[in-house]
């Protein structure tokens, strides 16, 4: 075997520094040179980033101290996402957790559906501990004991992605990763093999490598501009192609969740950080002008804006092969799915997980790239379907964008999923890829995709059994909820840094 000795990463955003961190963790000190090229001149996407619980696995694997990392990145806790204006109820939560608690293997929502046939059980969200926690702006860590209601959820973070990249950079540089300041102006490929051999810089120098990781964002300097790797456009399903982002002052209540509010030509995000709130409006240029979008965004803020809104352009889709020869595209260079379900850091992270598992040597066996691309495809397609569901099943918003997405043809995989849920509340579990049945159930129910009937397995408990079970569950949730601290207090005690969050703009 001829192991990799020299890896070059292009781009120093979140995915670039995550890649550098993962690789320097994977290779023993001194065995592989890891270099990252970035330019201070190029802006970094990301004003307040919402994450998924998986990011904790990444941090834990690196050995980061949670409180220190949170202080350094202005971070708060996240229990899920509140969706406003996507369904008849005006507000529903997609929690990192489940509705109810296990009842002999029968999914909770089936018991609730059955309960509705003989009593008024109230909203299903009343039975979800993480949702109740979020709505009351409380936070505490989950516990492991499966008997406790406090084991029914997980958590992630909101943080400043620029600070996260900077924090990882320090971590990487302390472990020998070399940072090269510069702009890439050329990509040299071997004339015979097509393998990339070096990147030339504006300064005149060049950087070689055995493996190149393209984290240059939408520009995809290596994978797109130089290699011209194919791109599959998903705009017909996900028409939003612009975002305006702006920070505003923090409000008194620190919500332990992201908010995504449906608007006339897209949706706005609200991400609470320790010192300020990140906001943005994801919209479709087909259905809104930039001026109108700016008005909508500024009108949506719940505190004074701290800067002028910044415009980002993108296109939903993914590269048909993220790994080609000795180039791997990561992050936005590999695909883009709007942040409606906070998946962007996850998608970089899972790609790195696959790379760790399929680490090539200098022969670059094509079987490795093929498997990597197969797994990435599954990830992107499953997230894509889930995002399309939000738009397609939106039962509340009005306007030409919403008329379009409600009537557009959706992928067969999604259509079948919706039909089975409408028929009987069934959600098939899959092994690879994001979003467990609990997530699908939360969004289906939140957006009024209501099953016509329940699963007959729910008969097993009997009417009295269900009545009793729901009563006890509610009591358990109430009792546990009352003793937990507010999110603001918890952050203040755990990881508050009065000086962070003001170090960049």
């Amino acid at each position, binding site marked *: 075997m001829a192991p990799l000795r020299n890896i070059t990463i292009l781009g120093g955003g979140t995915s670039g520094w995550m890649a550098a961190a993962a690789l320097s963790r994977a290779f023993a000190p001194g*065995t592989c040179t890891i270099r990252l090229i970035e330019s201070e001149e190029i802006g970094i996407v990301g004003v307040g980033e919402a994450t998924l619980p998986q990011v904790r696995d990444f941090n834990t694997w690196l050995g980061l101290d949670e409180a220190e990392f949170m202080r350094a990145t202005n971070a708060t806790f996240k229990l899920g996402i509140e969706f406003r204006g996507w369904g008849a109820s005006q507000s529903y939560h997609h929690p990192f957790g489940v509705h109810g608690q296990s009842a002999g293997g029968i999914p909770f929502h089936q018991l609730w559906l059955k309960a509705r046939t003989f009593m008024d059980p109230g909203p299903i969200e009343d039975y979800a501990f993480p949702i109740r926690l979020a709505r009351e702006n409380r936070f505490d860590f989950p516990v492991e004991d499966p008997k406790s209601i406090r084991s029914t959820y997980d958590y992630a973070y909101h943080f400043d992605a620029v600070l996260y990249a900077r924090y990882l950079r320090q971590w990487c540089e302390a472990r020998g990763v070399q940072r090269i300041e510069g702009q890439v102006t050329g990509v040299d490929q071997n004339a015979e093999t097509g393998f990339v051999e070096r990147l030339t810089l504006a300064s005149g120098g060049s950087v070689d490598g055995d493996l190149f990781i393209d984290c240059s964002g939408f520009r995809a300097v290596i994978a797109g501009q130089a290699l011209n790797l194919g791109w599959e456009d998903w705009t017909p399903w996900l028409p939003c192609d612009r975002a305006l982002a702006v920070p505003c002052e923090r409000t008194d209540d620190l919500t332990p969740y992201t908010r995504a509010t449906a608007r006339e030509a897209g949706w706005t995000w609200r991400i609470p950080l320790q010192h300020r709130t990140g906001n943005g409006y994801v919209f479709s240029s087909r259905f809104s002008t930039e001026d109108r979008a700016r008005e909508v965004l500024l009108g949506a803020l719940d505190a004074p804006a701290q800067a002028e809104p910044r415009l980002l352009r993108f296109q939903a889709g993914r590269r048909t092969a993220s790994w080609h020869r000795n180039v791997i595209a990561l992050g936005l260079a590999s695909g883009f799915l709007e942040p409606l379900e906070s998946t962007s850091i996850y998608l970089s992270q899972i790609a790195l997980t696959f790379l760790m598992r399929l680490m090539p040597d200098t022969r670059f066996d094509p079987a490795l790239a093929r*498997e990597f691309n197969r797994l990435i495809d599954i990830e992107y397609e499953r997230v894509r379907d889930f995002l399309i569901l939000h738009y397609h099943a939106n039962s509340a918003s009005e306007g030409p964008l919403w008329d379009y997405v409600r009537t557009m043809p959706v992928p067969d995989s999604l259509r079948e999923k919706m039909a*089975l849920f409408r*028929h009987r509340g069934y959600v098939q579990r899959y092994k690879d890829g994001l979003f467990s049945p609990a997530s699908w159930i939360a969004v289906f129910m939140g957006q009024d995709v209501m099953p016509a009937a329940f699963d007959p397995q729910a008969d097993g408990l009997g009417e009295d059994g269900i009545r009793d079970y729901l009563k006890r569950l509610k009591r358990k949730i109430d009792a546990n909820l009352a003793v937990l601290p507010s999110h603001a207090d918890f952050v203040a005690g755990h990881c508050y840094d009065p000086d962070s969050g003001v170090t960049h703009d």
Partner: protein
Amino acid sequence: MTDAPPRPVRKVVIVGRDEALWLTAAVLQRTFARSDLSFTAVELPSLLRPGEVLPTLDSQASFHAQLGLEEEVLMRALGATFTLGQQYVGWAKNAPPVFVGYSSTGVAVQNVPFHHLWLRARASGLSVAYEDFAINAACAKHGRLLTREAELSGFAEAGRGYHLPAAPYGEMLRQVALKRGVRHLPAAHVSPVVQGAQMSAVVLSDGQTVEGDLFIDTTGSEARLLSQMPETGFTSWRHWLPFDRLLTSYAAPATPLPVFAQITAFRSGWTGLFPLRDYTALQQVYTTDELSDDEAFEAAATVARVSLNPQATVTPFEAGQRRAWSGNVIGLGDAAAVLDPLGSARMPALLFGLSHLTALFPLDTGGLESAVYNRTVAQVYARLRDAQILLYSLNKRRDQPVWDRLRSQSLPPELAYRLELFSACGHMPMYDEETFDEAWWIAACLGHGRLPAAYDVRADQIAEPDLIRHFQSVLGYVRKQVETMPTPDAVSRAATV
């Protein structure tokens, strides 16, 4: 899709025989006891052969728990035994037997899976077999049973299956089903009544007509009901799985009692010994191209080195599958997929079909659930089939026509893909619907000598002395656990008292 508008499912008719019929009836009746459903079991004459055994994987236990069948009772009343895996003998000439068990092997270091560490150490001279780092294989070799008292946390994940004597097991399930209120109608044979894409009734041999909204076919490979439905033609897997005869017989119980099945290859097939408390069951799989039934019987006794009961039965079979759910008829077990007996895959196939049916039990005769059901179970059956084709393809019995062919044939695409990747880098891709876990696939490949060309580069970063220490600690742990485990005879004696 249907001729008449869908109507709610109320009357469920299960037609079949033996364990497939009664397991299905018992589980469905138990799960839907409070639903507005009635279950009728139409029992056809048994096809069980004397001395027949049902080998299972560890998934069986949760079904038993669901039915309220206690393990101790099962062992005591039926004379069932535990199995920790399979020992393959003669898969390569002059090579030691290979054990593929239901447990993990070794322990990862710094997220580097153990088999990569083993591959690295092997490249620098380690001679300890891969299976020696597996708790199930070590217990099996030393004649010890891995009990629930074993201290596994952090070191190993282990499971165990059963060898179940088929006749008393089926009888026990029948009792459970009938006690729970399943209506029982014996019949010598049945004639299905199909109108368009729906089955409306079955007419029993005594002339009685049994109507139903939903029909479940557990009749075995003839698929008496399902085969009458549209688009349920049989897709043969014979080009991958050429064996077409199963010989069943039995011999005296083995002492001491082994905790595994022994599968011995011979020129025209293989002979499996499945130890039970009161007898040793024998299954022999072979091809009629090479062996007459009499020759097969002689071969069985010779290969297994036991004195066989002359009451041997030969059953022809052809591996393959058909669409499991068509209209209002659903096939379970052999009615949906006939698997080769290798690797004890038949019972888990039945169980998966049944549990997926429980999760998708149709609300009406429209069969909206059938597309997802068919796709899922077809994947499960195909992955089980792939596991068997893998085992066969890993043989090294050169110059024996059947085995040469099994070794050199082109593989189903999903299997070819995973083997190609594993051979390249030691990583085993896993698909959505797998019965055998990653540990099993890797153990099967490495045990049978399919060694990857490369291993995870991170394995090289662990200092040699640390790696040696790690191997020693794993072996030490395995040894210590094995010593504390009882022999199966001791457990069996304790259970009989």
